[in-house]
Every structure is written in structure tokens, then in C-alpha cells.
């Protein structure tokens, strides 16, 4: 992701097929975690069986995987898109929060509007919220004032505090015993879900974003120019490609997509804004983008895998009496293995 690659997606021109490597690395993480399980006296095979059967073994389990994948894919694209021109957006979490904040503002203040106006309005607000938030870092970077890695990371905390300010203060629901949460959204502000499940319209946002992301990079002049910037920014600049404009624009769009994740979480899942709307989706999205090198199918596969781990992690507690932190060990193992991969590749060059 940080390295310059010759193709659009780094997984392309490698001797070892990307997917094989992907499965190998994930398998390695699972293997190490199995050893950890054996050490603490648990049967890893049964643990894995439980994880996979609880998530993939039923229609409900599968639907919940999809529910988890929606914010993960959106926040992964938010990282992958700017990374095409070596921008490192660590701010998915904050962009998600501001997207949720803007969307909530719309839902609360325009609750009298009919759904066909209110819903698109909330959508636009969610995108704008995340987009503008990320654009601040984009401008700072384009002007050469501050690294986007640092500014996006730090602005996560600001974003979460901003959300807290509103739910503790002006937007607090008087009906909820002074508890910090906004009033419930009206029906017109709730994203529709697929009959009986929690799979909501955000899935369409995720799929469309993925397709646009792929088409944009592969078939458009913008994609070509971005590739040029990614490969050799100096040469690109000499050829008249407006790099600063690309930095700001890509940060805006990336942040906007993360904002959609926040918007769909409050509108479809929570039905109101409250502290803790995201259990770190933005950071997991970063991991996913990193794991897959920005490859669209890779992102889907990685989001799928992490959704299984997060959802199936409950089972480790329910059926095996493992502490709640066990699943975090597995997730960080995957992160380590993936980091190890890119480290090893760099030194091999």
C-alpha cells in the first residue's frame, strides 16, 4: 500500500497468486491462535467449528456476517481509495462518526419530511460529514502543512468527542432518564432492511462503492492519472497532473464513503445516535484494506473473514468459557502476520 507498485492492484503481477498468499497468511494466523488455544487447554478444532458453524451454518448467522461486512467494506474503501496515491488515511473511525453525526442532525431536524426526501438528505449529509472531515486532512497534506497519517489519526479522537458533545448536550433525549443518547429516529429516517434480518440498504452503498472504486481505477482517465501519481509523483506533476487537487478530492471521497458507514449504522442498526456506535469499524477497515492491498475482491474476502471472527468470537465465550479478549488475540495475530508479509517483501526487494 505504501510501496509503489506497477499495477493498479499489487496482487496482480506477483509470481505467487494473491489469493493463495492471502489464504496462507490467514491460515498461519489461525494456526498460531490454535496453539494459543491448546496452551490454555481448549480444543482449537472445536472452537473453530463453533465459530464457523455459528456464523456460516445458518441463514441468521450469514445475515449477521453481511451486517458486519457493510461498515467494514465501506471503511476499507475509505482507506484503499486515497492509498492509490500513497495517502494513508487512518481516520476511518472519525469519518464514520462525523458521517453519523451529520446524518443524525438531518434525521432529528427534518423529521417532518417524507421518507423520499429525508432519506436522500440523510445520505448526502452522511457522505458530506465524513468527506469534509477527511478533506481537512487532505488540505493540510496538499499544502504540505501536516502529514495526513498523523492528522487523520488524531482527528479520530476529536470526532468521537464531538459526537459525545452532541449526545451529552444539545441532542440528549429528555425521555431517556438523562441517559446520553438522542431521540429515536422517525420511521422515515430508518434505512429499510431485508425482511426479518438486519441486512440493510447500506449493503447497496457498499456494493456500489466497490464497483465504482474498481471501474474508476481501472477504466477512467482519473484512474490512469492516479496510477501515474502513485508510480512517480514528480513525473506526474511535471506532466501537469494536479496532485494537490487529487489529494483533496480522494480524501473527500474516501471520507465520504466512511461517512456512509456511520450514516447506515445510526439509521439502520441503532435508530439513534449514542456514544459507542462503532466498535472500531474504522480501524478494522484499515486492517482490511491493508490485508488486501486495495484489491476489491480481496477487500470483500477480508471483510468476510473479519466479520466471521468478530461475530463468531461470541461463541468462544458462550461455548468455551474463553474470556472476551480471546477474539482480539486472533485479530491482532492476523494484523501481525499481514504486517510481517509487507515487511518481508520490502526487505526482499
Amino acid at each position, binding site marked *: 500500500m505504501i510501496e509503489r507498485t506497477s499495477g493498479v492492484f499489487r496482487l496482480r503481477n506477483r509470481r505467487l497468486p494473491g489469493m493463495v498468499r492471502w489464504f496462507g497468511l490467514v491460515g498461519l494466523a489461525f494456526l498460531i491462535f490454535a496453539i494459543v488455544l491448546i496452551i490454555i487447554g481448549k480444543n482449537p478444532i472445536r472452537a473453530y*467449528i463453533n465459530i464457523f458453524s455459528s456464523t456460516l451454518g445458518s441463514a441468521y448467522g450469514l445475515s*449477521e456476517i453481511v*451486517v458486519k461486512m457493510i461498515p467494514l467494506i465501506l471503511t476499507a474503501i475509505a482507506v484503499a481509495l486515497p492509498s492509490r496515491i500513497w495517502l494513508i488515511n487512518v481516520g476511518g473511525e472519525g469519518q464514520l462518526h462525523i458521517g453519523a453525526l451529520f446524518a443524525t442532525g438531518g434525521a432529528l431536524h427534518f423529521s417532518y419530511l417524507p421518507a423520499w426526501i429525508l432519506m436522500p438528505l440523510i445520505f448526502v449529509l452522511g457522505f458530506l460529514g465524513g468527506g469534509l472531515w477527511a478533506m481537512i486532512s487532505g488540505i493540510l497534506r496538499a499544502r504540505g502543512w501536516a502529514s495526513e497519517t498523523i492528522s487523520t489519526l488524531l482527528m479520530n479522537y476529536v470526532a468521537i468527542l464531538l459526537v459525545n458533545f452532541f449526545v451529552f448536550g444539545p441532542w440528549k433525549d429528555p425521555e431517556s432518564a*438523562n441517559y446520553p*443518547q438522542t431521540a429515536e429516529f422517525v420511521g422515515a429516517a430508518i434505512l429499510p432492511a431485508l425482511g426479518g434480518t438486519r441486512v440493510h440498504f447500506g449493503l447497496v452503498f457498499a456494493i456500489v462503492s466497490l464497483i465504482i472504486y474498481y471501474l474508476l481505477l481501472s477504466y477512467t482517465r482519473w484512474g490512469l492519472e492516479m496510477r501515474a501519481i502513485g508510480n512517480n509523483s514528480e513525473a506526474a506533476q511535471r506532466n501537469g497532473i494536479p496532485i494537490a487537487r487529487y489529494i483533496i478530492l480522494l480524501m473527500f471521497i474516501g471520507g465520504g464513503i466512511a461517512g456512509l458507514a456511520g450514516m447506515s449504522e445510526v439509521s439502520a*442498526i441503532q435508530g439513534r445516535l449514542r456514544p459507542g456506535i462503532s466498535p472500531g469499524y474504522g480501524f478494522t477497515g484499515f486492517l482490511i484494506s491493508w490485508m488486501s492491498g486495495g484489491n476489491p475482491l480481496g477487500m470483500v474476502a477480508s471483510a468476510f473473514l473479519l466479520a466471521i471472527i468478530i461475530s463468531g468470537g461470541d461463541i468462544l465465550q458462550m461455548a468455551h468459557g474463553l474470556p472476551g479478549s480471546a477474539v482480539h488475540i486472533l485479530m491482532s495475530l492476523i494484523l501481525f502476520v499481514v504486517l510481517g508479509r509487507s515487511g518481508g517483501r520490502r526487505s526482499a526487494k
Partner: protein
Amino acid sequence: MGKKNFKMGMGFLALLSALMFMLVTTTSARASSEPKLKVGILHIGSIADAGYNQAHAEGAQIMKKNLPGVEVIGVENVPEGADAERVMENMIKQGAKLIIPASFGYLDPALRVSKKYPDIKFVHPGGYKRAPNLGTYWASTPEAFYLMGIAAGKTTKTNKMGYVVALPISFFLANINAFQIGARSVNPSVETRVVFTGTFLDPGKEATAANALLDQGVDVLGVIVDSPITVVQTAEKRNAYSVGYHYLGVQKFAPKGWISGIAFTWGELYTRFAKQVMDGTWKSENLLGNLSSDYLTIAPFGPAVSADAAKLVNAKKQEFISGKSQVFQGPIKDNKGVERLKAGEVWPMENLGKMDFLIEGVIGQAR
């Protein structure tokens, strides 16, 4: 994307799914003896927090011990957002017939799941909404805080006491107010300083707040966060007194400066819930216990509390139980000088959720 890659990937996927199918079919063949009742309990934090979560978890364990054949499925660290619903659904899929979503923020998710499963019973601590199959339970705490105020007001030497509190929500404001009223009833010159940390668990902020209060000359520290350990340990380290909350076992973290504490002892209540669900007599109600309930317990007094103070506390406790005394009895002024209750007026306990002020003598902001 390379075609070859794609083919190999699909091959792997096919292999993986075949493997998975085999594994799934082998597990479903495994039979086991069914328990009489499965109870699912969700915790917002760690069940080893010596606080809110441990109190619930131990309650569930006592229920299990009391009722042979009852199984407990506990899951800790469940975020209040999207995950809570899934965990509850999975518990139901595992056969749970009674669910205890043990955090305030689980109320909305629990209500949604309860609508989907009318046959499953839910009991929620502190909820303000109910459903035909979702009841709520809690204990009225201001009386207990009043008693802590008596013990602390008698013990303090600097006449300055401090409270580290998560959020300025109504119930917590009521507790602080009750503490100050109780303290003032035995020591007219006492004041209570409050710091809100803004979150239910942040040991760093709690330690900072506790130290800041101690630096201001406070010599009694109380705490309303999920895990009281940090605050009582900080008090102990700096030779101050402490008042515990949530869990009966807090005393061992501050044996020297221990005054007393308020603890939730849910075991017998959970046992009754489970029994009612098993024999079909459970019904949705809004259960609000008091000092006479077996799930609200005043912890033993520490060495710092005089026999005189202990006697006062016990006498007042009986007055609260018999209904002879009320905590919020007018006249009451808030700490901005506005009269909130006229002489002779009583703040009704069912309106605790509307208390939005701190009383005279409490230093802090109610929002």
C-alpha cells in the same frame, strides 16, 4: 484480476466450504444432556472488574448454584451497539429461555429482540421501558447513599468529601444529592465535590479525578463508575477514606480507609427469575427494590467508622424501610441557590429520572 488467480481462489473456496460442511455435520450429530433452563447474560465490560459487571456475573453464578440443572451462558465485553442484538440472538439459538442484558444501553436492542421472540423472557436492569416479555429490575439507591453520607460525614476530618462519577445522568445526580443530604444531617459544615469522567470505565481518568479531589483537601472518596477499584485504591494509597459501590468485594482493595459501600447482590433475585421462568409464573413487571430487598446490600463497616456512626446508620436504615423517613424532603435548594422543593414537599421516587440538579453543598455541574 488474473483469471488464473480467480480459478485457484475459487478452488480454495470450494475446498474450504466442503471442509466446513463436513465439520458442521459432525458437530450436529453430537448429543448432550439438555439442562432444565439456559440463562444468557450479557456484560458490558469485564466480569472481573470488582464492580458492576462482576456483581451481575456472580449473581448468575449463585443462581446456577441454587438451581441444579440451570446453565449460564455469559458473554463479556459486548458493546452496546450492533453486537448486543446478535449476542442475544445467538444465546437464544443456543437454547437460552431467559436473557439478562445487564447494561442500561442494552435496553433498545433487547426490546427489538424481545419483539422477535415472544416466548423468550428478558429482564433488564434499570430499564425505563417494558414489553410483555421484557421486565425491568433495579433497586432504589438514594436511601443507601444517604446512609453512606451519614457514615462518611461522621468520619471526615476535613469536612470535604469527593465523588468520582461516570455521567451526570439523573439517577447518579440523585445518589450524590442523597449522599450530601445524609452527610449534612450529621455534619452541617460538610461539602461534596463531584468530578464526572464522562465514561463508565476509564481507570486513567478516574485516577486523575481521584487525585485532583484529594489535592483539594478531600479525605473521603466515593465512586459511581463500573469498576470502583481505581478510586478506592487511590484513596487508600493516599490515606483517605473510601466508600465502595456495586460489588461487595471492594473492601479488600482499601481495607484501611474503608468506610462502607453499597453493593448489588443479585444472586437470590436471579434465582427467583429463573424459577419463575421454569414454572411459568414469570410476568413482566417493573421491580424496584429498596434497603429491605435481598439484592441491595450495605457492606460491612471499616475500622474508621465509629460505633456511634454505625448506630446512626442502622437506625436511619430502619426508618427508610418503615417509610418513616424520605431522602428528598423539602426544603431543598440546588447549588445555584434555586429552591427545588418547598418545605414539606417530597420528591417522588418514581420521578428520579427527572432530577437534573445538584443540591446545595455539592460542588459540581449537573450537566
